[in-house]
């Protein structure tokens, strides 16, 4: 389904909703689209008669909401205590440099997105990154380069 149609499904479900429905509505949109698009927020604003800034204000309060479409490969980097001790801060910097994006952003080609998460529950593997739900243990600068290069290569083929 293309984005518009997915959104129409959600819209239908909340046809007569009032401002109270804001958070479940946003959750459903994110569930369908993977993020909250500008168009979606504009529509919600009209539907619930709330200003766009209010909706963005509420949504940006919660970590769960994203405002950029996730990349084809969504990379999560763990910044929990164990990973922190094992140098996850430098790992994040490598990722930022390699991908030329900051956390919560998506690369221009739509391939990668980056998210900082707190403990993923795999402390023995620290430092950890998760690419589309696949765990990569004990990463360093070299490993990261390799992972990203591999994906890029596969995508070209």
């Amino acid at each position, binding site marked *: 389904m293309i984005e518009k149609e997915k959104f129409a499904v959600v819209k239908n479900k909340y046809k007569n909703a009032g401002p109270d429905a804001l958070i479940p509505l946003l959750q459903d949109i994110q569930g369908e689209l993977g993020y909250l698009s500008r168009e979606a927020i504009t529509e919600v604003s009209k539907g619930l008669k*709330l200003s766009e*800034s209010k*909706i963005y204000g509420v949504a*940006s*309060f919660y970590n769960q909401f994203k*405002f950029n479409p996730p990349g084809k490969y969504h990379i999560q980097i763990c910044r929990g205590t164990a990973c922190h001790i094992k140098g996850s801060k430098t790992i994040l910097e490598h990722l930022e440099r390699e991908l030329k994006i900051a956390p919560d952003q998506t690369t221009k080609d739509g391939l990668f997105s980056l998210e900082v998460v707190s403990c993923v529950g795999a402390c023995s593997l620290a430092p950890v990154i998760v690419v589309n739900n696949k765990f990569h243990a004990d990463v360093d600068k070299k490993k990261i380069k390799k992972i990203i290069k591999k994906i890029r290569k596969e995508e070209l083929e």
Partner: protein
Amino acid sequence: MISVKINHKTVKTTPEKTILEVLRKEGIDIPTLCHMQGFPPTGSCRMCVVEVKDFPGLVPSCSYPVRAGMEIQTHSNRVLEARRTILELLLATHPDDCLYCGKKEDCYLLELSSRMNVDRRPYRAVKKEMKRDIASNSIIRDNAKCILCGKCVRICEEVQQVGAIDFVNRGADTCVASAFEDSINLSTCIGCGQCIMVCPTGALQEKSYLNEVMEALNNPAKTVVVQNAPAVSVTIAQELDLDSQVEPQAVLTGILKKMGFDYVFETGFSADLTIMEESSELIERLQQGGKLPMFTSCSPGWVDYVEKFHPELRDYLSSCKSPQQMLGSLVKTFWAESQKINHDDIFHVAIMPCTAKKSEAERSDLLTGGNKDIDAVLTTREFLKLIKLHGIEVEKIESSPADTLLGKHSSAGKLFAASGGVMEAALRTAHYLITGKNMEEPEISTLRNLREHKETELKVGNYDLKVAVVYGLGAANKLLEEIKRGEEKYDFVEVMTCPGGCVGGGGQPFGADQEKIRERMEALYKIDSRQKVRFSHENESIKNIYAEFLGKPLGKKSHELLHVRRTNQ
């Protein structure tokens, strides 16, 4: 009646008040940061705390109701220490920028730090660093100086019902921003500047054009023309404490000439012109079954609001340009030709009580041949700074009559600056145009007060006109919804974006309460009642410009120069 003790003195009061209200009535000044008169309290800053006997903690006076027998201390050591700590914590992350800050003369945060004798830095933290948002033509937002009091959010959402900004993110990342943290020019902001009026810091300011104006004044190749709105002259009179017997415009003109402006025109003149055109347009709509009600179009924030929130109603707006823009286009066409000055060599400054006028001057549908009719708009506040910059001593100013586009001087309309004024003046002229006679009683008293919604019915010739006057976009929105639902029917509606009309505009000096705004209104009514000519259609300059140049209202030249075909901005 109940009695309480305030700083050991017994005071009688009524119970439905907050502690703060009682204290203020007693003349005790309590610092507040988030409190807004007339709004439900949020109690978020705690700057207003007082000590109440037998209460475990300090009590925020703005949100706590007074109760019988309370023993209140407003300036005990404990209270002062607490307030000072709150302030010191705010200052810890606040940029040390006062010397370079446009708000330094009026900054409440700076005032508090002086009042509370802050002279040390017990808390050190990383100073806030955020990008200044300078993309709007009306306002500048500098979030680094924001203390998150929330007043701008409330005025924008609750009074103006624009909701351009809100709190976003959380924790240390919390800031005030528009959706997606876009720059404010991409939001629904209509540039009214009411948020600037309530901001206790320099986080919100108007976009300043003082440098451009100074450059033009010092450029011998430029003929610098200035116009000022009637609201500006009465406000300046108030700010400079002018004798109530003197004619404020004459003093203002004297000041402007002294500063080196080559020509000083009154926006009141083009306001009279607006009335001629607008009342003719009303009659045309009445006679030809045009769109009714007709909405006034002189308040640019309101025009922007209709376009953004009720685009289907755009054609109900009068097609008249605002007085600022009418004068702008006449100066660079008719007047430039008559003076044999190339229009490119004219720099036209407008002094307005308004920040939205700055954006209006940049509208693409108000350009003439790709050029701006108005080159720079200064607010009343910027103008006061310009007076200081020039070191003007007001007592030594020689009053001077304003210039006119056509030689002969004649006093012009001043009423427009007060809510209800455009309506009153327009009805006076419509009455004349319909019946051929002037109204016997030109003052329409039902329209002369500070209520946000006024209306009246009036028989003019064969027409029974029903008109409404509102200010504040929240009130306007309510009226629009009633009209849309068919509950109310009007012929003519005046809307002003700001409280009380232009006299309460977002470009006016800070700290004006209702009383001061009322004073400005009264001053305008007084000038109106003193005036020999009280009808726009009897203003000699107006008669002349129609006779010698424009032809007749709604004529070909008028349409070209004084009306606008609005396009999406």
